């Protein structure tokens, strides 16, 4: 169902909120890096491209119709440092499908921030947005990303080999997914 949450969303250590114009430098600091862009569809972004991307995102804060997305800046609650971004896309209204995504600054990886933020977005997707299935995908070589999908309780549903071209070479892609029932039983294990 349509979803226009109130921000910020809070977790133990993180604050998730819409992007603002003041975030350009912080975003450029990770989206400008080759290591971050390697497995993204976009190449490393220039500062101007980051400014443009953020301008688009200031409106991406709710789900009204199919294809809409919520893209949120993730910052630490204590120091207010922007450590990355998470997104939830409404892929199918009829079949209640959503897609989850994330990009994090390499300097802040390995502390469970991505896991914490992604879990909060799963709760939002299965909770207020009433989705039936949420999936995520990544390049098969991007092990930290699919390890995170497994930690989130997602199952590997697809392993595509050479089904498209990606940055001048053949792709290899994983799809992971979690159903509403699976999410419910992970949140309330005693009830089943």
């Amino acid at each position, binding site marked *: 169902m349509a979803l226009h949450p109130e921000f910020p969303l809070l977790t133990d250590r993180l604050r998730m909120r819409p992007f603002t114009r003041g975030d350009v430098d912080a975003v450029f600091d990770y989206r400008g890096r080759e290591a971050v862009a390697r497995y993204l569809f976009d190449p490393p972004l220039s500062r101007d491209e980051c400014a443009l991307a953020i301008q688009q995102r200031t409106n991406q804060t709710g789900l009204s119709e199919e294809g809409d997305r919520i893209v949120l800046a993730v910052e630490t609650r204590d120091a207010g440092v922007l450590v990355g971004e998470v997104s939830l896309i409404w892929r199918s209204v009829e079949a209640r499908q959503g897609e989850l995504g994330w990009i994090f600054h390499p300097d802040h990886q390995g502390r469970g921030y991505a896991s914490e933020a992604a879990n909060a977005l799963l709760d939002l997707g299965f909770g207020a947005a009433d989705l*039936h299935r949420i999936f995520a995908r990544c390049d098969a070589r991007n092990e930290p990303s699919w390890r995170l999908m497994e930690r989130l309780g997602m199952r590997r*549903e*697809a392993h595509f080999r050479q089904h498209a071209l990606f940055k001048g070479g*053949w792709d290899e892609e994983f*799809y992971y997914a979690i159903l509403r029932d699976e999410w419910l039983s992970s949140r309330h294990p005693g009830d089943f």
Partner: protein
Amino acid sequence: MSSLRLPVETAHLLLRPFERGDVDAVSRYHTLPAVQRYIERPTRYDEDVAAAIAVMRKQVGLQRPGETLTLAMVRKGDHRLIGQVSLKWSDATASQGEVRFAIDPAQSGKGYLTEALTALIDLAFDHFRIHRIMVRCDGRSHHSVKLMQKLGFRLEAHYREHALFQGEWDEELHFAVLDREWRPSAKVLELPLRDRVA
């Protein structure tokens, strides 16, 4: 690419384009619940089948991406039309193809689909230079699953409840095979004798 020669002949079958007069023969199997159960566009009545054949009759080659080649499976002995196979050129940049099929349930289990699909996949890789072929099927369709395994396809995807199909949550499988997996030695065998060095 040399022009495509039809019909394609296999040991027991002729694979030929559909004709106007095929409506009765196709209706006999296509409208059966056992076939309808796994088909995306329902054809419950003869009129639906006639409309489908009007479309399939024109699917005789792959000139542009997005086009489909559809062939009727006709048994050589009694000229009976027992099923259909198709190849869609789904993506030109990455040379991707999708194969579909349907057979008269009374004629399944006799190896006809294996024979027809082998010929169609040969055509896809050797003639149309497709790089990867995928097949989608319903998770409950055990005959299709066995057939894909027999043909050497890999199971690439197992989607659970990722869409609604005929009013219910779906379970969809994707199988795929790459050109080099299908026939690793094809490139060597293809060379005509006169082109060899020694």
